[in-house]
């Protein structure tokens, strides 16, 4: 065979095994979801038929969808800044010499490796009104207990606290890596110039950590559209949809209501959001490189 053609064939052959699975479980479902979103939901004897934008019209008028979207935004913008700040703080602390550093680092990181389901099982006890840990603590301090998960005002917050607890240690790792990547001479220079620690951190360290922050923030954003395991244990989306997140709503629609058509619409919406995020990340990174 012509060596030039052989080269192309060889490249494709190497890629082919992975390609099959990429297409089957990523690209085909993306296309198929878009396609299904324009059809009705076939049920029993009813056949599938084209309904145009009817499902999307239902989406626009579906208050639960809007509530879920809003919850998702609150969840993301409530957890990410806290998680990221804590992660930086943890990384800075763990990065210096200190007694018991190994314990502290392990304590920060451990929640990351535990399954969300296990974590939810444990936190459920904290939040149980009357007999749970939080209520016991509050009562011992003379405050009244709260119905943590049963009150729409606090239920989502409770889930967010868990997410912060679980993710801060995970993102700490990336900052730790970034901190260790800061050139020694930069640090020395700072010391020689007599820069205050806070000043040095703000003017030198933090900007150097910027690429990591961009990476972490976007990863965290994606995660809010992916990790919903704790909802299954803690609230099932309630009370009154206060903890309904988009992916959980998608699950309910598909596997509790058996409405594949509307589930396809929700899939498309989630995909659109994620793609937009990807584009935004790309733009941010691009702008940064222009400035540098």
């Amino acid at each position, binding site marked *: 065979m012509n060596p030039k053609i052989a080269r192309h064939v060889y490249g494709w052959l190497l890629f082919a095994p992975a390609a099959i699975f990429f297409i089957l479980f990523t690209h085909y479902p993306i296309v198929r979801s878009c396609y299904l979103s324009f059809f009705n939901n076939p049920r029993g004897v009813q056949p599938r038929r084209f309904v145009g934008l009817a499902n999307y019209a239902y989406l626009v008028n579906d208050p639960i969808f809007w509530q879920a979207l809003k919850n998702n935004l609150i969840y993301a913008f409530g957890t990410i800044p806290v998680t990221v700040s804590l992660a930086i703080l943890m990384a800075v602390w763990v990065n210096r010499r200190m007694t018991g550093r190994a314990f502290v680092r392990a304590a920060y990181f451990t929640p990351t490796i535990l399954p969300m389901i296990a974590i939810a099982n444990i936190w*459920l006890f904290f939040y*149980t009104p*009357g*007999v749970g840990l939080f209520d016991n603590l509050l009562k011992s301090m003379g405050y*009244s207990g709260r*119905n943590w998960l*049963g009150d729409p005002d606090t239920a989502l917050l409770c889930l967010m606290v868990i997410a912060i607890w679980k993710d801060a240690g995970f993102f700490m790792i990336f900052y730790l890596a970034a901190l260790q990547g800061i050139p020694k001479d930069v640090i020395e220079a700072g010391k020689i110039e007599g820069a205050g620690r806070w000043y040095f951190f703000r003017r030198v360290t933090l900007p150097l950590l910027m690429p990591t922050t961009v990476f972490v923030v976007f990863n965290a954003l994606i995660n809010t559209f992916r990790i919903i395991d704790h909802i299954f244990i803690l609230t099932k989306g309630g*009370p009154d949809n206060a903890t309904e997140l988009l992916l959980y709503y998608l699950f309910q629609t598909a596997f509790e209501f058996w409405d594949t058509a509307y589930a396809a619409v929700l899939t498309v919406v989630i995909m659109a959001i994620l793609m937009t995020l990807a584009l935004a990340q790309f733009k941010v990174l691009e702008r940064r490189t222009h400035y540098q």
Partner: protein
Amino acid sequence: MRTSGFKLVLLATALVFMVVGVAAAEINMTMYYPIAVGGKPYQIINELIQGFESQNPNIKVKAVYYGNYDDTRTKCLAALKAGEPVQLSVLFSIDIFDLLNQDIIVPWDDVVQTDADRAWLKSFYPALMANSMAGGKTYGIPFQRSTIVMYYNKDAFAEVGLDPEKPPATWDELVAMGKKLVKRDANGQVVRWGLSIPSTGYPYWMYQCLAIENGLELMNKAGNEVYFNRPESIEALRFWHDMAYKHEIMQKGSTDWGTLRQQFLGGSTAMMWHTTGNLTPVRDGAKFKFGVAMLPAHKRRGSPTGGGNFYIFKKTTPEERTAVLKFVQFMTEPINTAKWSIGTGYVATRPAAYETDLLKDYVAGFPAATVARDQFEYAVAEFSTHETARVKKFLDDAIQAVLSGKATPQEALNKAQQGADQILGGYR
């Protein structure tokens, strides 16, 4: 050569048929069952299955367990859609309309053969059949069935000077006694509530109690109309709301179905409404004297029934149907129903079970076990419509919104009615 090759093929075919024939003599059935693996209910079901298999060596029963009704339905439907062989299942009694819409179940009337079989079909408590029949045909055989009862802490009653043998019998008494039972610490913080009614998991079910006690059934028999915003239903939800916000005998916000038993056993609520299916765990876990009572009455007494029925699926061979019938009849034999009821707290579904010595002795030593049965006299069908899961969600959301003080009963129930009408309109 040709002929001998042909003969070989013939021989091979014959062999294959023989093997298949032998295999066909053995009937395998798969059943989905909504209990968690392990634990007492699981052990009892397993023992019963083993008992059945030893009586019928040619029938093998494979039980697939799932923790709760929703998961079981989800998984069972998924398996059926995937073309896996599932012959029967215990599913939520209220799934009946959805299973009919999916066109996957057959009435037991078509499965029974003899007069004895037909008599068996009629041998269950009539209250339980309300959720088991549609269009005059029987689709569900009651097995894992319950009503809602009131568990109360007798020690707490005695402590505040109430008669432990006289639980509240009316809504007014409920409020009055509830107020007495609320206990506060030195700072005025509540350490024990008077009453808890769970509002996650199955909010609509608990709400149905209040609605029926207020004289209203929430849906029609055909399952295509609901009455969420009638004056009676609004009043019922307002009463639930007021117990928390006006009378302050109940915590505000929703009360978790799953952890409520732990709260009751931990003493942080003096009374709870819960399924009779919880009777045995409460008996095993309570460190104090507790009582079980019928729910209090308002315009009338009442509780919806609940729980699961045996369904038989359409995609079954005649041989399989006979085997399934045999199995379900075995499971509902008075003695086996009695064993099941004692082990779990679920109601024995046939009067004959209460005539067995086993259950007679048990009831004599533990009278609380008959409360749920006695309540059958006042019981109504559990909430069930077409697209039940979706319609239920509208009602559940309304209840939770009201209990957390986010909407008035009128607003919330109007909204729920609208949502339900939109979906049910297609089935009228």
